[in-house]
């Protein structure tokens, strides 16, 4: 029996994405308590997790008021923190899992006494202490997000550090369920699609008129009903989407609390929306999800954590854009067509796996045997880095059982990268050899010399797939282009890939593996800035 405290002072979406990690911890607690500390306004959501035995509210407003230099820090502030810590002390946790990246959450871990802390905590000298390799990974993401192939749910699960297993569905309280039944009564017996049109940033929210066209297509091409959800702040936009469709389109923006919203989502057949809390609630409730990832949102990081969920990204070179949110010309919005969204949605509603499309990048979430979530489907050029890392993380983990210390890590990365480089070179050599057998010389039983090797290699390094796709196009399709052009294309792709590998090598030679920034002090006191990297 082991008591755990999970500190998850996160926003709605991230909190919901921490649910599988909490299920893992709950299983490992072996009958012990699992307490979850969340922001005050998310307490009802936290209570929906069946594995949580106690929810501890964190009242950020009180603390903010107390620290606004009114002298209240010494009275209200310290009193509040004292009470909070007393509450946790009563729990007497053996383990604290801190899923919050803020410095003050690390301070909190240093006040509460527990045998073990996972996630960020405070070193004895007051510096930052990152416990565990995955915590370190988590903290280096800021500088290398475009390379990260690990879904946030998996990251939380890795940081929690217990065996993964089946995770719990949130439990909808009966009164919220009754509320949803009542609201949805007029739409009975018809498939229901919920549209989450809001998000936490205007750049991430698809244009209301495009949503409206989508609704029009959905209603005209099926018998479904549509419910538009969102906060009170989304009302104006939602009216544009919902006005004029009569009973088949219900707008409940701002009319529900979060739990009631979850109850409504629980009764739908498909959720379409942005990378937001409601979408992750839908995924956790095991609802088919169709996510639209615009601007800074990337499916690699936050695709719905459910087998078969579909993520759509625009086919524009600048996506995903920087976290600054300063884009003045969001071309990604127009790059996704309502026709595609409606078509994919109607296929999903009918239980059909939708076809890939040319106008956008469509990927399907897949998670096998407790492994990490993987995205299948089309691959964009910008995915190369992520794919290479996805493979390397697996290779390294497979060989070492865990992340090695950074110094060893660097050596291993370097070895892997050299290996990868030589395999790419060999592969290209063979590809070019294969291409040089002219089409007209190929007999009917022509056997591609790479037919076996390539799938095996790609199984290890899916990052090579772009290269392979080019080759396949050239060998299988009877293109009119000359052999030189085709070879040139492959060599170009090879160069690109090698450049990327060379970059990674360079980083590792500088002693900084981008995904494991060694300048951060680790749990065991290792400080890479003082390490002997040769």
């Amino acid at each position: 029996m082991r008591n755990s405290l999970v500190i998850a002072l996160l926003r709605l979406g991230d909190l919901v994405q921490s649910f599988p990690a909490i299920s893992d911890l709950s299983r490992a607690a072996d009958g012990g308590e699992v307490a979850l500390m969340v922001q005050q306004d998310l307490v009802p959501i936290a209570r929906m997790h069946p594995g949580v035995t106690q929810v501890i509210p964190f009242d950020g407003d009180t603390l903010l008021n107390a620290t606004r230099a009114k002298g209240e820090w010494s009275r209200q502030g310290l009193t509040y923190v004292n009470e909070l810590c007393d509450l946790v002390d009563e729990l007497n946790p053996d383990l604290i899992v801190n899923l919050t990246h803020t410095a003050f959450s690390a301070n909190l871990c240093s006040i509460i006494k527990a045998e073990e802390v996972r996630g960020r905590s405070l070193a004895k000298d007051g510096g930052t202490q990152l416990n565990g390799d995955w915590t370190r990974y988590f903290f280096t993401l800021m500088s290398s997000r475009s390379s990260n192939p690990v879904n946030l749910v998996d990251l939380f699960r890795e940081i929690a550090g217990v065996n993964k297993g089946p995770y719990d569905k949130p439990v909808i309280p009966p009164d919220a369920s009754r509320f949803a039944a009542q609201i949805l009564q007029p739409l009975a017996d018809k498939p229901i699609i919920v549209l989450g049109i809001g998000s936490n940033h205007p750049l991430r929210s698809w244009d209301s008129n495009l949503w409206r066209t989508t609704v029009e297509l959905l209603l005209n091409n099926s018998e479904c009903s549509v419910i538009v959800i969102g906060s009170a702040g989304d009302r104006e936009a939602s009216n544009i989407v919902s006005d004029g469709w009569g009973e088949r389109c219900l707008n409940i923006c701002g009319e529900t609390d979060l739990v009631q919203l979850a109850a409504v989502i629980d009764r739908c057949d498909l959720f379409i929306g942005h990378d937001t809390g409601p979408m992750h609630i839908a995924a956790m409730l095991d609802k088919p999800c169709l996510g639209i990832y615009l601007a800074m949102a990337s499916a690699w990081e936050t695709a719905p954590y459910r087998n078969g969920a579909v993520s759509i990204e625009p086919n524009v070179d600048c996506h995903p854009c920087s976290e600054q949110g300063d884009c003045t010309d969001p071309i990604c919005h127009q790059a996704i067509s309502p026709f595609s969204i409606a078509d994919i949605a109607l296929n999903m509603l009918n239980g059909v796996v939708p076809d890939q499309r040319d106008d956008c990048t469509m990927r399907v979430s897949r998670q096998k045997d407790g492994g990490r979530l993987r995205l299948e489907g089309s691959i964009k050029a910008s995915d190369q880095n992520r794919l290479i890392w996805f493979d390397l993380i697996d290779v390294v983990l497979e060989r070492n059982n865990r992340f090695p210390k950074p110094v060893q890590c660097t050596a291993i990365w370097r070895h892997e990268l050299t290996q990868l480089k030589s395999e790419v070179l060999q592969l290209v050599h063979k590809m070019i050899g294969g291409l040089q057998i002219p089409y007209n010389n190929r007999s009917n039983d022509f056997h591609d010399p790479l037919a076996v090797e390539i799938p095996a290699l790609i199984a290890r390094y899916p990052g090579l797939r772009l290269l392979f796709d080019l080759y396949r196009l050239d060998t299988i399709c009877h293109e009119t282009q000359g052999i030189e052009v085709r070879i040139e294309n492959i060599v170009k792709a090879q160069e690109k890939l090698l450049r990327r590998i060379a970059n990674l090598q360079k980083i590792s030679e500088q002693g900084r593996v981008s995904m494991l920034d060694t300048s951060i002090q680790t749990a065991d006191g290792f400080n890479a800035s003082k390490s002997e990297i040769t």
Partner: protein
Amino acid sequence: MNYLEENLKRIAIGNPDIELLRNRYRPDYPEIKTAKDGSPVPVINKKSLHSSYNPASEAQKWVQNLGIEFNKDTLYVIGGLGFTYHLSELLKIVPAEQLVVIEKDTALAASALANRPSDVFPQGLRFIVGQTAARAHARLNEINRNNHDIVFLDHPASNNIYPDYYSAIKGIIRVQKTEKYGGYKVLLVSPMYGGSLPVTYCVQRALNSIGHRCELLDNTSFYPGFKHIQEVTTHKQHQNALNSMLTSLLAETVTARAVETQADLVLVIAQGPATAEVIEELRKADIRTAFWFVEDGSTLQYWKGIAPLFDGFFVIQKGEFFTQLKDAGCQHPYYLPMAADPAIHRPLELTPEEIAEFGSDLSHVGAGYHNRRDFFAGLLDFDFKIWGSDWEKAGPLSHIIQRDGERIPTEDTIKIFNASKINVNLHSSTYHSGVNPFGDFLNPRTYEIAACGAFQLVDERRYLAENFEVGTEVVTFNSLQDMRDLAREYLEKPEERAEIAAASRQRVLKEHTFEHRLRELMGVIAGRYPEWKPKGGGLPTAEELIRAAGEDSEMVAVMERFIGKGPLTLEDVAADIEKGEGEFTRTEAMILLLNEFRRWGLEKGVM
């Protein structure tokens, strides 16, 4: 019946201002009407100072509404004498010794003494009459030697006639109360260069010294950039555009810093950066704004765009300039003359070598303005030294220009003031020869020479007499001949020079230091904005926290280091804990957590 003489005699003791009133009595002012109950009631600008039915019963209600719980450790101050009905009523519950009456209008006060019988002026009652707000407050401090708590009681009808005056005094009293507890946080914005820069540093020292927390936003580092712009192009339009961008950039740093430091007031000194957008942003962030325009408003015109935007616009000129300011939309300009910092400008014991180097019969430290060049050419037969820059090197003055016309560092300026028998202080003018007949404001030098306890002959200025007593504290000239005569006369009278110089220094120390000015400036803002309170107000001191901690020995251990350090902010305490060694106690860890949370809030912009 006229009670003036009788009353003057009765209350003369302990009230130095009262003697002035003898000459201020005017039978025709204020107009006196008779109330329904027969009492005399003064009327000024058609506003009656008491009820026209029954002044005594109105006064009773006034006292009732004040709801005073009499405290023997409190000094009660009434803003406005009127014809004393309210005073009489208050005297029923507060002894005369604990009461001070402040009245701005000397003629009204004289009329009250003339028209009201002597029994309404008990002995021991103190009056402050006809003083500026700052001087009234200084007098109040002299009276309040026992540091009693001061309670200001508004006489609404008097306040109605001189609202700015009473609100300033009220504000100064309020601000002074905060000074003991860390005062207000002031972000002081300096210019990039120029004559108002030394003033900025004096303001910083003064604010900190009277108990506020002043942080300097020093813009001098941008001066090379500014110079660069002037050299990049000679095209005026481009230059203006670039200068305006630089101003916007600097102004934006003001908002950034003010919000970050949770400033209560942003005070910009002349030539410092200010834009309408930034002032608006500061207003939204609940930060008051003030500008001290220590310049000649008729020479420099940039005040027009910014004066109306500030919560307080402080100037060194009155009269015509006030009218212009009001026309430009600045409703409440406030006259705040220059001052001296006695920590810098002070009497010095000089060595014989220094006297030889810096001394002369006559001297002048300053730049070579047109009027000075003309005027000083008429003093060449004296032992005369000129110090400072921008003098014609080839002209008739060339042989008396010291150090080849270099700028003189402040420390040497002070030695010159001290070593010279007569400091010639001719205010600059670009348009006149010699003495500017329209000169009004006083330059910093007037106060600085006086603060050094040095003797000066100064040209006649409109506001001189209200700052110094002419003849006993400073001596003035109005022409070259006048100046020559006075120089000859005073060179012969070293003792009189010393006496006058000492008196002028005393006057500066009593009334014209930067501390006096800044106290007044803060008071004016506080008076205008009664809701304006220090954001850091109520900060705890270590002593209070130790008291409150009781048995909590950890808190006592943390706080012991801060005893005697005044109000403590969370940042101060956290920074100190972070510097320490060893493992954190629970209390220390909690304080660090709170501080991290505060930082997080700032970063997220939710503070």
